[in-house]
């Protein structure tokens, strides 16, 4: 599988790792301008590491839901084009602001991903929606945000089983979430994100026209 332009495998301290070019954010190892992208701390990093067909080529417009303190979104902004980062909690947004400051095409938005009207007046139609929200109703979030995806766009989703229901078998949770997703999306690929993330399912989907 090819990596998007701007993401490379490079050697850090003797091991090959994913890397992007940009200002370091969370104390990650660096090599000149390149900084390692830790798949253990990033669902999208895990998806790339597992060779999922994300369709990312580099330079695309991205809506990132659940940006948290900006670990993953900083790498996305390094290789993508305009990147809109939605995060609801004030505390992590503080860190995200530091990440966004040196990245001039990264736009932080303090808003609830469950209410797209709160940011649809800012976010343009995008090529990619990346979703990593640890709340119940992850399928509903993806569905209501389908309005932002261009017809040929991609949803890159990490489903966290424990956010839906800690007591159920993750496989059952995943299958329910995928069923709910099918109302708005066509599922292209799914893969468990182990060993990087326990009880997470990586999903690549495209909007139904």
């Amino acid at each position, binding site marked *: 599988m090819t990596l998007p332009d701007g993401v490379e495998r490079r050697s850090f301290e003797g091991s090959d790792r994913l890397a992007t070019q940009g200002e370091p954010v969370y104390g990650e190892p660096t090599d000149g301008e390149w900084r390692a992208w830790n798949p253990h701390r990033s669902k999208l990093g895990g998806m790339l590491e597992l060779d999922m067909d994300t369709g990312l080529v580099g330079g695309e417009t991205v809506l990132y839901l659940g940006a948290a303190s900006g670990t993953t979104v900083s790498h996305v902004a390094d290789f993508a084009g*305009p990147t809109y980062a939605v995060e609801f909690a*004030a*505390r992590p*947004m*503080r860190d*995200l*602001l530091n990440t*966004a*400051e040196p990245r*001039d*095409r*990264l*736009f*932080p*938005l*303090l808003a609830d991903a469950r209410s797209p*009207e*709160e940011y*649809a*007046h*800012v*976010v*343009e*139609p995008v090529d990619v929606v990346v979703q990593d929200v640890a709340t119940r109703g992850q399928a509903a979030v993806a569905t209501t945000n389908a*309005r*932002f995806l261009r017809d040929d766009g991609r949803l890159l989703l990490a489903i966290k089983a424990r956010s839906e229901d800690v007591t159920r078998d993750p496989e059952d949770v995943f299958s329910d979430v995928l069923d709910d997703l099918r109302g708005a999306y066509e599922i292209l690929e799914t893969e468990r994100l182990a060993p990087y993330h326990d009880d997470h399912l990586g999903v690549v989907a495209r909007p139904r026209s």
Partner: protein
Amino acid sequence: MTDGTHAGDGWFAGLDPSDREAAIERLSAGESEDPADWPAMAIETGYATDEDDYYDRLHDLTLSAARREVRERERADDRQLVHAVRAMDDARRTANELAERVAEWAGSRFDDAGSGVEYARELAAEGPPEPDRSGSDDGISDPGTDRLVALATRTAELADEADELERFVETAAHDVAPNLAAMAGPVLAARLISLAGGLGDLAKQPSSTVQVLGAEDALFAHLSGNAPSPKHGVIYTHEYVRGTRQADRGSAARAVAGKLTIAARVDHYSGERRPELDAELDERVRTIRARGDDQ
């Protein structure tokens, strides 16, 4: 997404490109049902000259808007501070009342009964003195003594909780209102915020009101014509007020209230720590106190 048939306007619609404040406000509070090709529309309507200009503006403005919103949200913690300082006062007052009860009861049973929370702590830790004056002949255990010691234990625990709450108030006050906490001390800062109803409310008070917060009874007595105007409310506990001689205390209270009001406004509207504010108050009070020294 063509030709403006979208449910809602972009954040820049109708704005003067030079009006940053309005743009930040719109980014935070605006809404639209659907997205649209906002960059193209902004260029079309003349808000931005080209795509780079649009994104540069958007980057600058979203950072400012998010920063401001984060600050506003974190400021909501002043509610927590208000609850904590009120709980602290309730716990302390109740502990004192219970300690009085313990002392009164113990006085009826033991010769060397003390008073206050300290005595309740002692009784809780050491148990009743031997021999128990009230003790019946058939043993040291007496149901009345057991209850009294248990009450003393609860009293001591409640006093401990008041201390814990005070420690929490001290940390929280520095987070919520760094300048006010530095200048007034964290507990007085929390009391002022509590009396005003919140940091935002305190920031909107004139300094003359801040000066008499907590002295409402005296103020209303004065307003109905029966009493002199109060010189100070809770700010009396500030050492610059309490530690200034009687004749100058009104001036000191006015100076302290004035600077605390400014500190509250800086905390509310900017959130940045400004140590020079403390220095200004120190200087002012030094001047006031020096007046008397010359005479």
